[in-house]
């Protein structure tokens, strides 16, 4: 795209992009750390994640502030307006992702006393990896202005839902087999749900990137494959 006649305007937009990029990579790192803390049952690591979330919240505020200042100063139109509004929306989704990752680590701390939980927590790893990949892909699609890549992220969310549903069944089975596992399995269920929600936020970002690039709003109908809310424990095969 041609540069703006006012070069400072381009610099402001570039700064915003830099902040979004930084926030995306910090959020992804936070989730990676939270996942490791979960897999290791590592309370110290979990506490570091909780502390690091504050930096992500601060970035969201900075992005919002910069975006609003740019709107006030430049009265952006068309692609520029969509770009700036998109940075606010994306920062909002990333902030939520940070909170969800933080919530996972709080649960790591809650179940740390039960060694049996670490073995079961390993089941969440494929879901976590998948979600981290989605975050990486959508951050790249944003920076590269790649609509096809954004749509790919949007479509891939179904796979996360499938993983989440199967985890739900698996954890339910553990709980039915051994009631002593109900406490930590419930925490792990929430962890799985958090990861699934992070996937949803990644698709939100994908929708925002698509809107930013094309001006078209993707319909609300997204490929949904999360069937966990329809799972009936009384019909689960593990029932005694």
């Amino acid at each position, binding site marked *: *795209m*041609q*540069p*703006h*006649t*006012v070069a400072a*305007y381009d610099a402001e937009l570039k700064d915003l992009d830099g902040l979004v990029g930084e926030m995306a990579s910090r959020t992804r790192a936070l989730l990676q750390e939270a996942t490791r803390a979960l897999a290791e049952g590592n309370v110290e690591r979990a506490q570091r994640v909780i502390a690091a979330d504050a930096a992500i919240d601060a970035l969201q505020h900075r992005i919002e502030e910069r975006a609003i200042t740019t709107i006030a100063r*430049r*009265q*952006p*139109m*068309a*692609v*520029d*307006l*969509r770009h700036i509004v998109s940075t606010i929306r994306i920062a909002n989704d990333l902030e939520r992702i940070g909170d969800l990752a933080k919530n996972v680590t709080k649960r790591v701390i809650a179940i740390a006393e039960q060694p049996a939980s670490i073995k079961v927590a390993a089941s969440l790893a494929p879901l976590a990896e998948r979600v981290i990949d989605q975050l990486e892909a959508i951050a790249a699609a944003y920076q590269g202005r790649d609509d096809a890549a954004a*749509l790919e992220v*949007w*479509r891939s969310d*179904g796979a996360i839902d499938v993983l989440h549903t199967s985890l739900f069944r698996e954890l339910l089975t553990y709980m039915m087999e051994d009631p002593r596992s109900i406490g930590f399995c419930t925490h792990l269920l929430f962890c799985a749900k958090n990861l699934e929600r992070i996937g949803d936020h990644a698709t939100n970002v994908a929708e925002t990137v698509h809107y930013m690039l*094309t*001006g*078209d*709003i*993707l*319909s609300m*109908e997204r*490929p949904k494959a999360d069937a966990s809310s329809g799972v009936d424990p009384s019909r689960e095969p593990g029932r005694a």
Partner: protein
Amino acid sequence: MAVEKSLTNEALAVRPQPAKAAKVMARGVDVHYGAKHALKEVTVDIPEKGVMAFIGPSGCGKSTFLRCINRMNDTIPTCRVTGKITIDDNDIYDPDLDVVQLRARVGMVFQKPNPFPKSIFENVAYGPRIHGLARSKTDLEEIVTSSLRRAGLFEEVKDRLGDSGTSLSGGQQQRLCIARAIAVEPDIILMDEPCSALDPIATARIEELMGELMESYTIVIVTHSMQQAARVSQRTAFFHLGNLVEEGPTELIFNNPRDQRTQDYITGRFG
């Protein structure tokens, strides 16, 4: 899995608008100033009632086209207009047409307020008087009062209608010019950058006034302020180098224009 697009842009383009006939139709309009080809094959419909904005960089032809609509270009000896422009299906370049009558039906407001060096009352009364619109003195007073009222000026000047029009502030003068245009009962009001000499408050008052007047008149405004076009108009046309590049619903032009030149202009990327 198929990605369903919402109809954002498509829906805007075909959004059911109140069935408005085109008030002004231009077909293949070319304008030459001597050897200079100022306007190239402009074809556009201006719907009845509402505001249509013409935007574009200086020298793009937007004012030239505006001036074709009331044949103001006739006053420039080297100017040659070809193509067809109709108002209510009547060809306004018909040799039998009375240009004075045309200009009464198509009023004009200019960049710089240009009241006559006469009283406020006389500024407004002049048009109706020469066009024979008032049968009596009270009739004329009634026209002057209602025109000033519709232009949102009456309350400010009612006690000094005898004062000179030029004694008013810039914003008041511009509203006086609008009252003067309205007084001869036009169908169409052309505005050529009506706010560029006004401060933000006077500008806001004119914009507010346009919002009221568009209920009764077809307004065409040329403006250098994109924000103003976005605020006041329902349709926008973008001109560049004598071509009408893109025309459509204002939201569409400012949110997601189709043509790269429009995009570059409205986002401030023209070198």
